[in-house]
């Protein structure tokens, strides 16, 4: 009896080898496929050392990346924290690619490897493959090749134009990285054709017509008419929220290789956009999946009681949510919120209360949570997901409350709390915190002074009187001016009234 039980165990103790990983993967795949109905890219699991993990951290989790000092800085920082024991390393890093690459650390115990495989190779993997945002905005097949190309291209630029020149461009591009994304759909990204396009660009550039360089004398110095302004805006595709895109296409003084580097930074930023919009869901999905899989493995007698306890220990520390007055509080923990919401949906689907039936009539008590979850994972992003699925019970459990902080007032005001009157407002407020359109300052290129000094004009649509942090804004504008080549003006205007609140003017460095 005992021997038969032990035969079912996937592994014993903390040690593992590649055979163990393989067995764990196959056991997880069985559960993920048959019971959870997940759908994933083929998995590639790579075993790495702690140093390599730090390395992967430094280059934002990408396996190969171009060289830049900021990655060295991040590496040094993580390394120092790690060495002092202040921070453990993540157990895994997973890359949205096809096949889906998960890095696992060699120091992990067998149980941790099981946790990591269930979490990354099935949870995240399913999310990457099925989430609408990822499907539409990223090219999982092309990313690894594109990164290889980017690395080689930046290196060849360094050889050709010198490291300092490339570093300057990258510094400037990184400063604007958050403004290098299209938030509205254009066409599916195709990273594989990027290399070919780079070659074509040079030829095309020589014939390119840039309205900024137009020096044809005009007939008469007539005052600028409405239609001229319209024409200019159309030619330059203004207003433009993707500042890097605008610079790449229209900055008059950039060399072709500089435009290409802007494009690389822009493409990488675009690749990460869905990750930033789905942090709660992505982690929630992965955490929920590993929790389900590991518990099921234990039920099937394939991992021991000790292993389950070890896994639960890691699990609970990952989903720990300190309260707002706790020393450790640093915002909502996406793992905690995500996992809580996923489990809550399961509860509503299987054991609904009257309140749940009222709030979620379309799936309360439907019996099987997986179709609901799979649908949510595929179609929502954090903001809409919270708006749709956060239940009153969870708000009570988390004891959420909404505080309004208006610097014009001497005190903070509690706007809503977890009670009948507050649920909907509270939920709306929390969802807004995950809306990138509201959390990131809304800055767009609005105009170029073509008849005068080619000054680039940007506008920050300030909401709620929130202005930019001045010092850093000026630094970013200096980077922007050095890319544009002429003066840059940033106007901060109030979104509601359109009143101008503040202006920053910066000239390019000479």
């Amino acid at each position, binding site marked *: 009896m005992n021997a038969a039980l032990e035969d079912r165990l996937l592994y014993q103790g903390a040690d593992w080898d*590649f055979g163990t990983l*393989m067995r764990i993967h196959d056991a997880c795949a069985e559960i993920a496929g048959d019971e959870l109905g997940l759908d994933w890219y*083929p*998995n*590639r*699991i790579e*075993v*790495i050392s702690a140093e390599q993990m730090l*390395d992967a951290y*430094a*280059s934002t989790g990408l396996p190969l990346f171009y*060289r830049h*000092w*900021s990655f*060295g*800085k991040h590496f*040094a*920082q993580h390394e*120092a924290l790690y060495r002092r024991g202040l921070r453990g390393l993540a157990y895994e890093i997973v890359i949205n690619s096809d096949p889906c690459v998960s890095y696992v650390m060699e120091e992990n115990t067998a149980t941790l490897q099981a946790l990591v495989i269930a979490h990354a190779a099935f949870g995240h993997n399913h999310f990457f493959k099925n989430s609408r945002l990822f499907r539409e905005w990223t090219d999982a097949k092309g990313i690894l090749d594109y990164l290889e190309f980017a690395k080689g291209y930046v290196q060849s630029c360094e050889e050709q134009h010198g*490291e300092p020149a490339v*570093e300057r461009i990258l510094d400037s591009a990184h400063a604007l990285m*958050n403004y290098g994304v299209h938030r509205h759909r254009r066409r599916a990204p195709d990273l594989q054709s990027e290399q070919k396009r780079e070659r074509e660009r040079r030829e095309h550039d020589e014939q390119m017509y840039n309205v900024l360089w137009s020096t044809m004398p005009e007939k008469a110095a007539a005052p600028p008419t409405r239609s001229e302004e319209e024409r200019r805006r159309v030619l330059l595709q203004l207003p433009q929220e993707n500042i890097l895109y605008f610079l790449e296409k229209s900055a008059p003084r950039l060399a072709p290789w500089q435009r290409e580097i802007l494009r690389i930074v822009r493409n990488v930023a675009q690749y990460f956009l869905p990750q930033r919009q789905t942090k709660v869901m992505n982690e929630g999905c992965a955490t929920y999946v590993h929790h389900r899989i590991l518990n099921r493995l234990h039920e099937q007698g394939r991992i021991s009681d000790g292993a389950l306890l070890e896994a639960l220990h890691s699990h609970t520390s990952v989903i720990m949510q300190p*309260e*707002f*007055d706790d*020393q450790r*509080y640093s915002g*909502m923990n996406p793992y905690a919120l995500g996992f809580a919401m996923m489990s809550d949906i399961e509860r509503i689907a299987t054991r609904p209360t009257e309140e749940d039936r009222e709030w979620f009539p379309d799936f309360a008590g439907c019996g099987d949570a997986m179709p609901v979850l799979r649908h949510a994972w595929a179609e929502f992003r954090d903001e809409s997901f919270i708006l749709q699925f956060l239940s009153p019970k969870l708000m009570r459990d988390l*004891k959420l*409350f*909404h*505080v*309004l*902080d*208006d610097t014009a007032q001497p*005190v*903070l*005001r*509690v706007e809503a*709390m*977890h009670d009948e009157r*507050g649920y909907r407002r*509270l939920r709306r*407020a*929390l969802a*807004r*915190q995950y809306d990138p359109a509201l959390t*990131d*300052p809304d*800055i767009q290129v609005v105009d170029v002074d073509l008849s005068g000094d080619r000054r680039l004009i940007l506008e*920050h649509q*300030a909401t709620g009187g*929130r202005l*930019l*942090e*001045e010092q*850093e804004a000026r*630094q*970013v504008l200096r*980077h922007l001016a050095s890319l544009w080549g002429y003066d840059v003006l940033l106007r901060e205007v109030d979104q509601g009234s359109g009143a101008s609140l503040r202006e920053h003017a910066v000239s390019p460095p000479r």
Partner: protein
Amino acid sequence: MQILDRRLNPSGRSLPNRQRFLRRAKSLVQEAVRDASAKRDIRNADEGGEVSIPLHGIREPSFHHGSGGIRDHVLPGNKEYREGDEIPRPPSGGGGGGSEGSPDGSGEDNFRFVLTREEFLSLFLDDLELPDMAKRRLVDGTDPAWHRAGYSVSGSPANLALGRTMRNSMSRRIALKRPKPEAVQALEEEIAALEGDPAQAERVLELRAELERMLQRTRLIPWIDPIDVRYRRFEPVPRPVAQAVMFCLMDVSGSMTEDMKDLAKRFYTLLFIFLQRRYKHVEIVFIRHTHEASEVDEETFFHSRETGGTLVSTALEEMQKVVADRYPPAEWNIYAAQASDGDNAAGDSQKTARLLVDTILPACQYYAYIEVGREGEHGIPGFPRGPTDLWRTYEALVTAGAPLAMKKVRHRREIFPVFRELFAKRGVLEGANA
């Protein structure tokens, strides 16, 4: 499903990025290194270690909201608040949850990271040089230099001497009369030309036999035979090693306070690191003195107290004795650094000067005198303090042309500049010290 083992991939993939980062933050890191080195023991002062540099120097800027305006916070863990409650604003300026979500509003101002020993030293000793590092001698047991020494018949493929091998091969082929390919080809052409001509049938047969013999000979005598092969040979040659001994002389009489000793210690630390960088073996001798001198260990040197008068000459005598016993000047590079508050018993100065000029200085590569004083000691109005006894004595020697470097130090922040002045490359700080 695929499992790949990446652990064996070459490490140090992040090295280029790290070098770029260090280059970028060089001036900041250099400063941090100088600060960090002040806090350590002499013997392990040159290990790598954590340094901390101000964050603003290496910030990557981005657009983000400043403080102020209207903002919403949704926070977990409500205990007592009801809708409509008013909460006093937390003092740190941030809102309910802090502007970045940290309730105490304090971000990290400093950037801490770890430097390796090599990085630490190269930043620390950038553009300094040791004066007069001359003496080298042969010591056993150090790693030898490899010199080319002829050829050998065995070796590794990387050391194959191709030219020599081919030369051997050619001479062997000539000596054994290996048929040349051209000869074989000529014969074949001749046969081809004559073939089919019945008149020449006999000649063809003859030629065929000749060709057969040639081809056989070609097969028997290889183009390159193992006996031709030669390898470049290398021979270990013991490398002369420069070794140094550093004498730390210090006055420990009652007039030297802990602060002054600390200053002296910092200076010795720097010197030790510097010597270690340049020499394979560096030994340290600590000699402390009051009215009598003795050689002690580091702990005693810096921390135990002695009372008594001050006779500088005793320290020099002790040093002279140690040099004679253990460090023959012909084999050792001798460096000495003396720290004192400048007091010396009246009447001892003459003897000190004589000892220095006659015996110590000729044996030394370098002799530095550091006079430590209390902070703010100079400039007390009404109490002008002239140069001390020892300073006057040494100054006279320097004026007379003795190879002696002297500096005053009053605060720990002066240590590094003083050290740099003493050891700056000639030409960088020409004439900074008399």
